[in-house]
């Protein structure tokens, strides 16, 4: 997993509610292998018209926003399909942080397992960070201090589970971490299946 320690970048605001993962990455691109990259397909049908030209008015098509790496979104961002490709598309385009009042639960989990820092923050707090410089706000996100700071020095704390934080800071594979608990897993498994034998045998 990509480690996350500190990130400074430009904000892109996408204040709509219920941006689903079908919007973030349409289903017809999901067969591509991971290493083919998904950045070009990010928000594909919102960014491009059917003939491939840029849709005027979509925030990411503003040339001054093309280098954005911190997405500030509306309520229920990443709802819908479990496709992790939505996270890959954001990362491959260059985003490292997504801030929203709340997220689709599966998208939230997927983000943190890939080094895309998803931060839940209420709308009022988001607005207080956005006051400076409007849409071109630059933010600094520091994971170890759990803080977001804007150019005026306004700084807010955010919550993150300690386990997820540790995993992100180290960028360590969760599978390898879990394998250290293999003895404990096997002991539980033996007992659990003895009590519920139908799990194993019809």
């Amino acid at each position, binding site marked *: 997993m990509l480690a996350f320690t500190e990130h400074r970048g430009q904000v892109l605001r996408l204040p709509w509610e219920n941006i689903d993962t079908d919007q973030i990455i*349409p289903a017809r691109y999901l067969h591509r292998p*991971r290493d083919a990259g998904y950045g070009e397909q990010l928000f594909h049908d919102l960014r491009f018209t059917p003939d491939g030209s840029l849709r005027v008015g979509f925030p990411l098509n503003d040339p001054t926003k093309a280098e954005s790496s911190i997405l500030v979104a509306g309520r229920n961002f990443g709802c819908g399909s479990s496709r992790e490709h939505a996270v890959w598309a954001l990362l491959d385009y260059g985003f490292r942080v997504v801030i929203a009042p709340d997220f689709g639960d599966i998208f939230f989990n997927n983000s943190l397992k890939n080094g895309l820092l998803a931060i839940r923050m209420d709308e009022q707090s988001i607005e207080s960070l956005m006051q400076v410089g409007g849409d071109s706000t630059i933010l600094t996100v520091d994971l170890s201090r759990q803080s977001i700071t804007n150019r005026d020095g306004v700084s807010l704390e955010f919550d993150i589970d300690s386990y997820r934080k540790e995993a992100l800071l180290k960028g360590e594979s969760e599978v390898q971490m879990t394998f250290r608990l293999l003895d404990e897993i096997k002991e539980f498994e033996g007992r659990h299946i003895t009590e519920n*034998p139908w799990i194993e045998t019809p």
Partner: protein
Amino acid sequence: MGRTLFDKIWESHVITERDDGTALLFIDRHLVHDATAQAFDQLKAEGKKVRRPDLTFGMADHYIATHHDPERDPVHDDMVTTLAENARDQHIMSFGAGDERQGIVHVAGPELGLTLPGTLLVCGDSHTSTHGALGALAFGIGTSEVAHVLATQTLWQKRPRSMHIRIDGELGPYVTAKDLILTIISTIGANGGAGHVIEYSGKVIDELSIESRLTLCNMSIEAGARAGMIAPDETTFAYLKGKPFAPQGENFERAVSVWRNLTSDADAQHDAEITIEARAIAPTVTWGNSPETALPVTDHVPTLEEIEVNKREQYSATIEYMGLEPGEKLTSLVVDRVFIGSCTNSRLEDLREAAKIAKLGKAKVPTVVVPGSQQVRRQAEQEGLHEIFLQAGFEWREPGCSMCVAMNGDSVPDGARCASTSNRNFAGRQGPGSRTHLMSPAMAAAAAITGHLTDVRELEGIKC
């Protein structure tokens, strides 16, 4: 204090817990499908093998062909083949193209008895919430989590909160589980269940068939919930008895005696309580690009004034995308396509309901019926339902996810309006530019024979 159904299943699967409340859970059943190829790639990159191939089952559904299409993209067949290859290499039992047990993973899983009460079941698909209808704790996970379960048969999760939705009264004529769940979503919102597992109960639930319960739990994710679940009862046990992967003989009786304890205790506390009155529900359709935009079919497309001020910009974009006139009656919306299928509504009961309506006329627009599994297809054909559909000019196809997720080449054309029994009306969900209205199978069949959204209760020849 008493424990909820969710508490009981969650707690019986916790291997260890961290200080921040994140638990390592044992996974009893892991279902994989043909859109999880990248997880097997991750597993290989980690240098691991599938730890419990005997608890892992494969199903080809997302990319599988539902009819002979000469223009089919070969990459779709490659995805189906890749699942078969990964399953073979990892010694997983998999139901692929041509297997008589194949179907949509959330239709075929329960009907094979792979879904059992009290178990923890996961799958790399958000509609895994479906399986909670049988009293399992079941939720969708992402690719990295699929790889983690393949490698360890465990999963790290933060404990969700619990929400109880009690449904009182009774459902009226032609008001189905689909209308009920659409109404619940519009009541609590598309994120109303976020961070929660929903337990459904009440008289209406007690009387629902397993197929209807599967429809209800299926769309819990559309309210943002991790999972939906219903305590197992006699209906559940009768459904499971004799299923090939359910316990057999004495083992079944022993299992049932344990499963009978899977109810929320009388003094159990849920984190949220909601009550829905079933008598107030009419056949329901959606107008916008979120399932929360559900309204009685007797209603109209909302006008700008009816929308909260901070949502008006998005509302205007939705009206434009969907090609709607503010204030127009929902029943005046002319459809170009009808799709009857998906993990929400492609079971035998759904097809019987649609066939009842199909008998009353002929399709005015291209209408596709995609059964949820090979077993559903065979049963429907034994009952002659396919003949009814064919006589009405509906297409009768092979099982798969098809036009719900539009990943296998089945899609709704740009700008076309589709009456659909699926679960998502997101922009572009059924194909770029597609305009989806969600509804029940009977309502979709009614739209097919009239050519516009229709209150099925008002069709000539219908007894209500």
